[in-house]
């Protein structure tokens, strides 16, 4: 097994699926000319040519519409948004048309469409449009599966499953995963590398992964915050607190079983996400736990909590989203 970077694993997922099925095509802004900025689409044009990968004009609504329309007409397209926030320019198409699939009064058949976009986070020259995490919005739509990976192994297996899925799947990918990751209690540059099998593998959508086991508290999270949670858990262990980190990997479908199992074991629950707190996805997780196991929440050793992006636009201030530090201090308040 070779140790590869996150972006490389992602690029492999795209290329393997394009080799496997000639119906897989992709389009987006500057995905040929600039390799989709971070290199996600590197070499795809050279290998597959202009029928399979296309640079679009700056037309977010067309990216959405074309992905739906082409899926209806027999392709398996991937519509790529340079930044996840830009997809909000096509919200009608993505939320109401792809996400609600109500074409007139009928529910149509399957739509093998994938939407992919990058969350920039509170970066250097970030602003809300570039940096924001949109998943809490899209999760409100009936038919959108939502994938939010954190590691090279996961992104490859999940993106391949997303592309093969016969229903719409959104992959919101955090740019910080490309450049950094958890290592020994710290977030380090270039640390998000992993050995990834050479033979093909898929990760089913809707299965969480316990990224670290623990007994005192369950931290439920996804996307880049998994790294912060792992770093926090690493350091908390040195202080005698044993935190379990559940990486949801997909938030729709939600692996409620895995969450409930963990919370039953630890008796405490902290939900962490980077998306803004108000009406954020944490509320859904909580209700689903309660609907699954109504007696679990009242039996917790301390009240459940959430840690999320502040209810503010995401300007260039890292404290606006959860960090290893705020996860640690919240856990310490709870345990």
């Amino acid at each position, binding site marked *: 097994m070779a140790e590869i970077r996150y972006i490389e694993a992602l690029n492999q997922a795209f290329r393997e699926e394009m080799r496997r099925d000639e119906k897989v095509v992709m389009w987006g802004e500057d995905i040929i000319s600039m390799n989709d900025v971070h290199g996600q689409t590197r070499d795809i044009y050279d290998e597959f040519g202009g029928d399979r990968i296309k640079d679009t004009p700056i037309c977010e609504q*067309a990216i959405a519409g074309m992905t739906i329309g082409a899926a209806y007409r027999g392709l398996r*397209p991937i519509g790529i948004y340079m930044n996840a926030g830009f997809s909000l320019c096509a919200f009608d198409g993505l939320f109401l*048309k792809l996400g609600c699939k109500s*074409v007139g009064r009928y529910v149509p058949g399957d739509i093998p469409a994938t939407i992919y976009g990058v969350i920039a986070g509170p970066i250097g020259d970030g602003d809300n449009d570039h940096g924001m995490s949109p998943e809490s919005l899209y999760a409100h739509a009936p038919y959108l599966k939502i994938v939010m990976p954190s590691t090279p192994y996961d992104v490859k297996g999940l993106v391949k499953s997303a592309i093969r899925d016969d229903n719409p799947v959104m992959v919101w990918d955090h740019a910080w995963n490309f450049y950094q990751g958890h290592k020994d209690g710290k977030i380090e540059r270039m640390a998000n590398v992993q050995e990834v099998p050479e033979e093909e593998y898929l990760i089913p959508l809707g299965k969480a992964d316990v990224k670290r086991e623990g007994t005192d508290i369950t931290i439920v999270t996804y996307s880049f915050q998994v790294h912060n949670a792992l770093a926090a858990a690493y350091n908390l262990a040195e202080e005698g607190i044993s935190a379990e980190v559940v990486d949801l990997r997909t938030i729709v479908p939600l692996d409620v079983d895995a969450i409930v199992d963990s919370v039953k074991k630890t008796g405490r629950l902290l939900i962490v996400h980077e998306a803004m707190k108000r009406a954020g996805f944490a509320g859904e997780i909580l209700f689903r736990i309660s609907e699954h196991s109504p007696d679990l929440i009242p039996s917790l050793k301390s009240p459940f909590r959430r840690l999320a992006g502040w209810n503010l636009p995401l300007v260039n201030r890292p404290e606006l989203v959860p960090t290893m530090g705020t996860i640690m201090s919240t856990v310490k308040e709870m345990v």
Partner: protein
Amino acid sequence: MEAPSLELPSKEVLLKLYRDLLTARRGEAEIFAIQSKATGRGSGHRGPGEEAIPIAILNNLTETDCFHPNFRTYFCHFAKPGFTLKDAIAQSLGRRSEHPLIFTPELGAMGSSGTLGEASVRYVGAAVANVIQKTGDVTVFIQGDGASNRAPTHEAMVVAAAWQLPIIFVIQNNKYGMGTSWRKSYNIEDLSVRGAGYGMPHERVDGNDMLAMYLVAKKHIDRCRAGGGPSLICADTWRLRAHYEGDAQIYRPKGEGQDWQKYDPLPRYEKQLRELGVLSQEDVGRLEAEVTEEINTTIKEVESMTVPSSFEDFTASAIDGL
């Protein structure tokens, strides 16, 4: 408006157009009557007087070509090769035929949109898929003058032009978007000029002149099919009725457009055909009878179909439960 090429279609085609037009007119009226009786009130968006536009276009398409009608003349969709009158009547009466008009991608129908305009970018996607899969199919996307002002239309045309896609955009310009008239919505009469801004061939046509409409549609569709890329047609017409039945039309100056009755494509085309010697008074009577008979038989047939209770399928489609 440029005069259309004078090459007349065959007698067979001329009569087919007439029959389709007649079927659209009579069929839609019959359906409306049934619906009003059922609900106790007339409702719905009716489009008599505008049918020549879709009928002319549909008679230039193949089974696998893609097509999106304006919602107002939705019923005319039966004239798309591959679809039948039964499909249109079933759709209108809430039954499910083998090929639902609203969504049968293999016959080029990929749904409409409750939010006006959005479907434009979806049909561009169909056109892209047709190119990549080398199907040779063309796509015709019709929407109203009002809807054409919506944002997605722009991106649809930008991409269609940049990629030289086989898609023809048609504006069915009946001068009104609900209660808002063209006087409030544009500073221009010929909306086809918008095509120039994308480097697309464009043309304005009298959409109530069946023959002109057919020839213009044919020209653009032939051109497109031959690899000539996208174009934009603005077909002028007039909304003879209210936006929806029952709307009091307080926004319309009294008597406005009364004279449009005389541009009604049905009598106008009939007259034209008779002048061309293609249609006799007897033909007209015979066709009326035939069409009426066909409509009535089909309605009976459709009414005997069970109303689909697809609600279970529908609820089963939820991810992660209801």
